[in-house]
């Protein structure tokens, strides 16, 4: 089993004149295990996978895949691998069966074996009921499984998966993981690229990339070891935990910190003493098991501080007890299909509220109804007291919207994007110039001002999207998967700003598949089959599913157990 499936020797690849996408990478990938290709967006993961398929050629160095050189024998490699590109490579206007037939023919799967293979793959991926459905009409999780099935049609020796977890809910992700794990037991080599560091942790070994450089290669636990004894969980916090996190982060010796439900997770610098964390009477500081992400942040030199200049420049919003976002019996029907049914909740000023749920369960329908993108069939949604259907413009003036993938106009420069959003939200004259200057200073946009937004590194895109969404000082901020694929440092910076804004009274509604983001929420509504099946704080939800087997469940465990519990009830 220890034969090298992929040998990468001194590989470099550059596009255009910019910094190389991959710089002097050397590594080996083995069969029979899952190798994680880990790193934030722009690290070079996709480029490396494409180099392995032979669709790109390295500028320098050599790649040998299954014993074939990618330069000379690309065709033989392509006959022996399975590859699932981002967006899964499916034809959306073909049905599930037609996609399978197409790839079976292209991969030369013999006719006699087809019935059996299709049957096995369809039950394996649980798609049997949907063979006639168009791929474009499948949910994200189902598309992902179909993409995998297409890559597996003719048993590959090496399976290359490019970010299979993006846009996919935790249940589908976990199912996919199990499927892939089974394949490795037959000796298949799997390369799984991901920006989620919790996925990386489960791999047999990882290649950790950042900005085209290989930072680490080996089993993830080996990297995690470097932060042994430096990870703590602060619990029993009195008062608000967000200002405490901000203050902790600014103390000497504190390297990194994130909010985890009611608690705060802290990584200290080597040699720092635990008592820098001491705080009040009831607060307890306990050592916690280190995670891969802690080590990665440590490797990158620690997270940002706890101050948000953005929040400091924001005016405090008064009367903390009013409900800024209200959903009253929100219902949406498409034909005879009910996408959301009787969704009701209130979000207080200065609260972070999360909408979670599997793909296609009604989470984005609810989100869209609340920010005015969809008209509810029944019920009403209010933002800052304004009805979204009647006082549309007033309501919209008071909300900010950030969908991490789609917010910006890529063809416009940074400065032009800022100008546009300031204008659309009605900022005028000196006030407008001041606001633009302010966010330009805070986020250090001056260097990029004339660059097209689409050419920015993802981290800067994300900062720009945030700046554009908050310049008009909205009372409510709608976030749609705000940090997926972003590197952990930028992610922490983002949440520092959000935490700061929340302390000033801004109200946040966030929808996400990303459990780390869920942990930042004060309350979460879990939506499944169009209904809210659980509403409570992250810790409450986790407590609900705690059992003897699993006394300290993660947010993901809670998510999966609650959804499966609801499904069982319905059955």
């Amino acid at each position, binding site marked *: 089993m220890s034969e090298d499936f992929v040998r990468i020797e001194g590989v470099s690849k550059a596009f255009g004149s910019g910094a190389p996408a991959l710089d002097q990478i050397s590594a080996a990938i083995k069969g029979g295990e899952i190798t994680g290709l880990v790193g934030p967006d722009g690290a070079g993961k996709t480029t490396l996978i494409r180099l392995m398929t032979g669709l790109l050629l390295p500028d320098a160095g050599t790649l040998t895949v299954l014993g074939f050189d990618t330069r000379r024998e690309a065709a033989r490699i392509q006959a022996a691998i399975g590859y699932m590109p981002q967006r899964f490579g499916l034809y959306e206007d073909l049905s599930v069966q037609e996609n399978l037939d197409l790839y079976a023919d292209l991969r030369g799967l013999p006719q006699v074996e087809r019935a059996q293979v299709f049957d096995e793959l369809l039950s394996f991926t649980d798609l049997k009921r949907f063979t006639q459905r168009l791929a474009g009409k499948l949910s994200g999780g189902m598309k992902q499984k179909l993409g995998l099935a297409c890559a597996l049609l003719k048993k590959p020796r090496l399976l290359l998966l490019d970010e299979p977890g993006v846009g996919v809910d935790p249940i589908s992700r976990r199912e996919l993981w199990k499927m892939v794990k089974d394949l490795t037991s037959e000796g298949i080599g799997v390369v799984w690229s991901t920006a989620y560091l919790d996925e990386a942790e489960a791999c047999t070994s990882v290649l950790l990339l950042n900005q085209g450089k290989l930072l680490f290669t080996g089993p993830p636990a080996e990297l995690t070891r470097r932060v042994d004894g430096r990870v703590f969980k602060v619990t029993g916090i009195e008062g608000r935990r967000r200002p405490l996190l901000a203050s902790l982060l600014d103390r000497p010796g504190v390297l990194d910190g994130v909010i985890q439900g009611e608690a705060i997770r802290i990584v200290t610098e080597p040699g720092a003493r635990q008592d820098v964390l001491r705080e009040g009477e009831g607060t307890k500081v306990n050592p916690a098991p280190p995670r891969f992400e802690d080590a990665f942040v440590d490797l990158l030199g620690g997270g940002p501080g706890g101050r948000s200049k953005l929040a400091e420049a924001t005016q405090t919003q008064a009367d903390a007890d009013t409900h800024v976002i209200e959903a009253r019996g929100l219902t949406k029907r498409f034909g005879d299909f009910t996408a959301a049914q009787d969704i009701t909740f209130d979000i207080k000023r200065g609260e972070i509220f999360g909408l979670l749920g599997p793909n296609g369960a009604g989470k984005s329908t609810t989100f869209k109804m609340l*920010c*005015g*993108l*969809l*008209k509810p069939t029944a019920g009403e949604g209010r933002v800052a007291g304004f009805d979204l259907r009647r006082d*549309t*413009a007033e309501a*919209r*003036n008071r*909300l900010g*919207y950030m*969908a991490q*993938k*789609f*917010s*910006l*106009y*890529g*063809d*416009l*420069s940074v400065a*032009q994007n800022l*100008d*546009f*959003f*300031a*204008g*659309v*939200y*009605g*900022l*005028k004259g000196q006030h407008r110039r001041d606001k633009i200057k302010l966010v330009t200073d805070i986020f250090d946009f001056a260097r990029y001002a004339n660059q*097209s937004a689409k050419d920015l590194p993802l981290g800067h895109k994300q900062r720009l999207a945030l700046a554009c969404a908050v310049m008009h000082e909205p009372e409510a901020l*709608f976030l749609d998967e705000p940090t997926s694929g972003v590197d952990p440092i930028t992610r922490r910076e983002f949440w520092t700003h959000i935490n700061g804004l929340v302390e000033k009274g801004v109200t946040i509604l966030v929808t996400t598949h990303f459990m780390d983001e869920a942990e930042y929420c004060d309350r979460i509504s879990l939506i499944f089959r169009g209904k809210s099946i659980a509403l409570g704080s992250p810790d409450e939800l986790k407590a609900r599913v705690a059992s003897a087997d699993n006394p300290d469940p993660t947010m993901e465990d809670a998510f999966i157990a609650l959804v499966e519990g609801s499904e069982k009830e319905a059955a």
Partner: protein
Amino acid sequence: MWGRIHALIIKELLAILRDPRGRLVIIVPPILQLFVFSYAATLEVTNVDIAVLNRDSGKWGQELIQRIEGAPSFRRIQRTDEQKKVHELIDRQEVIAAVQIGPDFSRALEAGRAGEVQVILDGRRSNASQIVAGYLNQIIARLAADLATPRQLSAAVTIVPRNWFNPNLTYIWFTVPSLVAIIALLIGLIVTALSVARERELGTFDQLMVSPLRTHEILIGKLTPPMLIGLFHITIYVLTAVFFFEIPLRGSLVLLYGSALFYLASVVGIGLFISSLSMTQQQAILGAFVFMVPAVLLSGFATPIENMPDWLQPVTYVNPLRYFLVVVKGVFLKDIPLSEVLHNTIPLALIALFTLSAAAWLFRSRLE
């Protein structure tokens, strides 16, 4: 409200013009098209080959052939003695026409009788061959006139042609003003048809819909930039027409631009309508083509509308190009009065009103 619309207009303009490839596509092809097609769209016929079969042995047959050879429109005169060869030359399109001079030609003319000439033309290229027939008839008529007696001449009715507005019937005086209207349609339609479809494919349309922009503000923001681009094209074309092609501009520029505003608004309205119907960019582009081709054919550009059958003429009432062609040619060459401009601009305003309201309604209904 104006601040918001202003921001949107700037954004739309930048989205088209900031990308160098986009700038290139907006500026170069329209100008290239104007030049190539102004010169290509000509109804004069030159450089064609003619076959001659002379069965006459006298001097008048020779005289006729020499006059044909001397005509500037014909490149080569192929003389032949065989009927079969004439067939072959025309069949293979090696000549466009064949002139056959009868055996009795000179004798008849000298005897004061009418000589017989047969002209065979290639009906496959019926446009060009009709024109060639005209040229040949002129040459033959001039020969006949030279033969006529003074008495015959003074008895014949002469027709004195007067070409108003375009004394030499210069074809380019017709093409260039027409192309102003047609190219503004082609570009305006594709640019607007893509504008909403592309935002929808990229996902940024949601961002617009959650902003405080109202539907009519989005509409104004979306229609102004293509109109500005259209006005820019029209200005370039007018300048080129006047200073490069030296076409007289007899009417009022104010009327031309006033009418152009409504023309562009109606074109952009149709583009936005197509755009909000389409799910993808491909559908938007192909949809624009399916409108464009019949619109050009039914505009009166290639063939006068009054020659179309009665049931078809009402279809042209919804075609903005039909009205603006009258205005642009009229202002350039005829100095048409205000009433006539109004007469053709009011329908444009109605088309714009209807298509823009329909597009607004489609925007909103997509939120359901």
